[in-house]
């Protein structure tokens, strides 16, 4: 076989195998490469090639009717950035807020499932994933029926005579600029609600996987060494859960930044996120270079964020 020419390659990353006497070496040498092949091919065809094409597109000039030419026109990047920086910034802020919200909701939930749910553990985990059984679009639309002016929330507060709570909540949101008038829907608040809801499982699952491995006896040991529950959380539970927190925040923040469905369905023209802009540039304005440039800017921003973030978290003496 032609693949056997790879025999001189550096030691292949193969899973540790139990010693079974003298097995033919040659076979063990190329099997990992064979196994890697489909995945590599997939990535080359569907990731690397499109990325290069996108990069090239972002540097071209021309229009749809007369065709494009690669002119290394970096001005597109400058133009795109100066025109759409508010949408970029907004995307980052919404995604960051939603990430913090999923963490605040997800941590206690993951802790409860991991350590307090007993025999209901698997059932609760299924419930966490259950929303995935319906489409993303429908789940997001559901928020319209919840937050609408005559939606479930309004009906509920009217029914229980707790309207005053709702209006109090609204004025609080107004103070923070999360709604602009009396309407909950079509506001930054609604978009962040949608993002938080849709990405919550991506926070809960890695956190659960991490917290489940956290030895409860360490928490007992902290208590035994004079740490109150709050101090035990701060000095033992939180530092040990950081790998899960990092994984969860990345899985939430990255897709939330590029998301546009929540903004389309639950937001207004005042809440446009960068995903919407890219979508419009590609499919309606047909300005491919700007769309491609914006895609790359978003990509670079996220990569820069991830690198700094992971570095930061990495210094926290992770195990």
């Amino acid at each position, binding site marked *: 076989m032609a693949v056997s020419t790879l025999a001189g390659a550096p030691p292949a990353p193969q899973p540790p195998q139990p010693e079974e006497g003298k097995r033919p070496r040659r076979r063990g040498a190329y099997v990992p490469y064979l196994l890697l092949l489909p995945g590599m091919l997939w990535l080359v065809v569907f990731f690397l090639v499109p990325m290069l094409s996108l990069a090239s597109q972002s540097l071209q000039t021309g229009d749809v009717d007369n065709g494009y030419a690669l002119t290394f026109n970096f001005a597109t990047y400058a133009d795109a950035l100066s025109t759409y920086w508010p949408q970029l910034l907004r995307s980052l802020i919404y995604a960051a807020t939603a990430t913090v919200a999923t963490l605040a909701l997800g941590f206690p939930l993951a802790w409860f499932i991991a350590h307090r749910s007993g025999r209901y553990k698997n059932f609760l985990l299924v419930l966490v994933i259950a929303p995935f059984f319906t489409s993303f679009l429908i789940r997001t639309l559901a928020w319209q029926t919840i937050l609408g002016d005559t939606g479930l929330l309004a009906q509920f507060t009217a029914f229980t005579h707790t309207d005053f709570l709702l209006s109090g909540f609204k004025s609080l949101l107004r103070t923070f600029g999360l709604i602009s008038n009396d309407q909950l829907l079509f506001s930054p608040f609604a978009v962040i609600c949608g993002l938080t809801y849709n990405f919550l499982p991506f926070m809960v699952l890695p956190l659960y996987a991490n917290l489940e491995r956290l*030895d409860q*006896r*360490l928490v*007992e*040991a*902290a*208590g*035994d*060494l*004079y*740490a*109150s529950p709050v*101090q*035990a959380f701060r*000095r*033992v539970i939180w*530092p*040990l859960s950081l790998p899960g927190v990092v994984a969860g925040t990345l899985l939430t923040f990255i897709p939330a930044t590029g998301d546009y469905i929540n903004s389309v369905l639950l937001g207004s023209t005042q809440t446009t996120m960068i995903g919407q802009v890219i979508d419009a540039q590609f499919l309606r304005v047909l300005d491919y270079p700007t769309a491609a440039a914006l895609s790359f800017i978003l990509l670079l921003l996220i990569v820069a964020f991830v690198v700094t973030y992971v570095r930061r978290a990495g210094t926290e*003496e*992770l*195990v």
Partner: protein
Amino acid sequence: MADQSAGDLILRQVTKSYESFTAVDNIDLVIPRGSFFALLGPSGCGKTTTLRMVAGLEQPTAGTISIGDRDITSTKAYQRNVNTVFQNYALFPHLDILDNVAFGLRQRKVKDWKAKAMEALELVELTQVARKKPTQLSGGMQQRVALARAVVNRPDVLLLDEPLGALDLKLRRQMQIELKRIQQEVGLTFVHVTHDQEEAMTMADTIAVMNGGRLQQVGDPGTLYEKPESTFAANFLGQSNLLSATVKGVVDDIAQLNVHGTAMTVPASLLPEGSTEIWLGIRPEKVRILGGADDAGGDSEGLNTLSGKVTDVSFLGVATQYLVATTWGRELTVVQQNDGAPRAVLGSNVRLAWLPVNSFALDASQDADAGADIGEDA
């Protein structure tokens, strides 16, 4: 001292029940300050639950726990001046050794925490690894770190939950001596939970034997071993030969016994009160082998003797262990020092002898095999 009993750990009628069973059943215990106390029993006997109640990790269903005259029954774990060396050590993996040891000091805002933590590491001879992570240390070293982390706080009571269970035999022997030394050096009250009777006897001043949630017997290792008060204690601490016997009468403070037709004696003071049917107990090393059945010489005067046949011989190095079948089929274990005397041969008929004062007597209503097969390491 004005008030020597000020720091005693006192358990009064402590009970811990769960829905379906009672883990600890009405325990009364006074553990004097500065003593090395062992709670000994098989797994599931309630010793760990007792320890956790003292640590504040479990709440007793009934009863009170106090240190001196301070009732700590409902005090939270983090408010108790009690520290624990956990079975799996429970070292914080994200902190280095020094930070682990200093955890309690910093929690209590002790100013010179660093110096004190280093001092504690010196005590366990681990100053050189102060900046390493727990996972970089061997099991024995982690064990010592866990000990330093507890000792450094100078608690009123230091609890050790099977602290040597995860170590290999040789290391365990070393650590037993080490623990004893450290306890004597710092003078704290150590309460040590273990299922290993040898470990308990090596280290503790006082041992409380527990079974089924109850205290069986409390005493110093010597008394527990020589004069057990129950078949459970007799079998759990070392080995015992128990022979069923009937008390025929008492003459001059000597009880006359009938053991399957053989006349024997035991000091009347050792008899359980009011019993006529008893288990006569004798430890294997207290039995001497006198040679052939015909060798009923004058030197057996005043001894209890019994003839039997050697059915098994195992050479143990420092001693030889024999199994000797009596005429009625009961096998006795006999251990003889290898002091140069000729050894008995497998299959030969021998006479066994022991001093009556070396035996003990237990009420026959108890199960002769209680605690027999659970004494050794799981």
